[in-house]
């Protein structure tokens, strides 16, 4: 097997670890003070699956994602990523609604943040450049974040998340602040990267059509519980406006709006 430096996946494989990480939640509850946000979530996500979590605002979907990403600990129950339930996991990467780039670091250094700090600077730069190429931002390594558009910033954030070859990518409404066309482009990019790399992906979104366009499986969260678990068995790449997709979207929306 030849190891292509520009395809980090190959390097990862050569170390013999499978890419996607399984996620297992058992009886997970989370309260903030008296307010119970999650009231018992049981969930098993297969390695490499693309899962979308939808729900009204305040239904606890972001909280759930933060628990999976290890940013918060559950009040009760167990969250295990790849069999480990001890909180933050280096193989998990998180993308936020805002790009959250360090404005005082150039693009390549921002991407380099995603790598373990032990690596040498030259090595980090090389990986950062490769990750930037992957998200279509080759040649922008030395730009300051302030000169990038919103979509480009989110691409840099995606490169930062991907550069360490995560086994689980958690996305918290990553496209919520983008305009409609940039959104579709980013959805296609995320889908393409996911297909190439094979990591487990969990995206939180309030946009049901986005969930249907991206996910293998859609979880609807309502009042702190999983109210609906829908398999989306449509071929990829998915065309927008597909009647099968529209039917699934309609079903989920009906449940969301209690119709």
């Amino acid at each position, binding site marked *: 097997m030849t190891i292509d430096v520009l395809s980090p996946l190959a390097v990862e494989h050569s170390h013999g670890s499978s890419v996607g990480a399984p996620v297992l939640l058992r009886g997970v509850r989370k309260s903030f003070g008296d307010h119970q946000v999650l009231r018992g979530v049981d969930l098993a996500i297969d390695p490499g699956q693309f899962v979308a979590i939808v729900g009204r605002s305040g239904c606890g979907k972001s909280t759930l994602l933060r628990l999976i990403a290890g*940013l918060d600990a559950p009040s009760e129950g167990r969250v295990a990523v790849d069999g480990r339930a001890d909180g933050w996991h*280096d193989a998990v990467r*998180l993308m936020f609604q*805002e790009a959250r780039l*360090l404005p005082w*670091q150039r693009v390549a250094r921002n991407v380099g*943040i995603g790598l373990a700090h032990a690596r040498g600077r030259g090595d980090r730069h090389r990986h950062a450049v490769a990750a930037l190429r992957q998200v279509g931002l080759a040649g922008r390594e030395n730009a*300051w974040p*302030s000169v990038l558009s919103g979509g480009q910033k989110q691409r840099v954030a995606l490169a930062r998340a991907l550069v360490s070859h995560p086994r689980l990518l958690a996305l918290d409404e990553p496209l919520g602040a983008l305009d409609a066309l940039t959104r579709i482009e980013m959805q296609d990019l995320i889908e393409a990267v996911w297909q190439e790399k094979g990591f487990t992906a969990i995206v939180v979104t309030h946009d049901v059509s986005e969930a249907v366009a991206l996910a293998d499986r859609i979880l609807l969260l309502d009042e702190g519980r999983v109210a609906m678990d829908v398999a989306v068995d449509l071929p990829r790449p998915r065309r927008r406006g597909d009647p099968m997709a529209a039917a699934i979207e309609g079903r989920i929306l009906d449940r969301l709006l209690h119709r």
Partner: protein
Amino acid sequence: MSGRVLPWVVPALILLLWQAAAQFGLLSNQVMPAPSVVAEAAWRLLRSGKLLVNVEISTWRALAGFAIGGGIGFALGMLNGLSSLSETLTDSTLQMVRNVPHLALIPLVILWFGIDEEAKVFLVALGVFFPIYVNTQHGVRSVDRQLLEMGRAYGMSEAALFRYVVLPGALPSIFVGLRYGLGIMWLTLIVAETISASSGIGYMAMNAREFMQVDVVVVSILIYAALGKLADSLARLLERVCLAWNPVYARA
């Protein structure tokens, strides 16, 4: 081209009028000597070596006081910005002390230190401390929480968070404190040297006053102005280099 020349037209005109007024006796030499006389005095002082010695002494006092006061202010500002325990313990005390105008302490400082170097350095340090302290603390406080969360989510250690997120995030505010502190530094030194000193630019001015050497007094004032301007320009330059990422500070 006109943009480079135009700002200098008014100062040049004032200088000319000043020279003319002095030349034709409209302005008494005892009130305001002509620019040419002031320039002559500056040249004389420079040749005798007096000017450089006094500038050197004053600059040393200013920098020593700035380093001490600024250093302590920066350290405490960082500490109180990062640790709420430290802030609870010390901030209200510091804010109380801040309300005492440091120049009001001059009689006390003279009683403590006499008119030696310590007195001047102490006053400068005290004056510089607060702007640096307040702005450093504010800078650390206003670092974007979202960036801190991102750093933690990406596995940064506390040391790395400080170096890559907190410090650069606080830097614009720290620079505000720095420039403000530099202004206070010269101001404090002028007052301290004028009231009690046996060397330095302020002493040079007060000594000249005793002998009615108005030209030397004016030279001293201009030297203070030049030193203040120099310090501010250096701070601005440093700001532009350190904050190149920030479109507000980027060179147009």
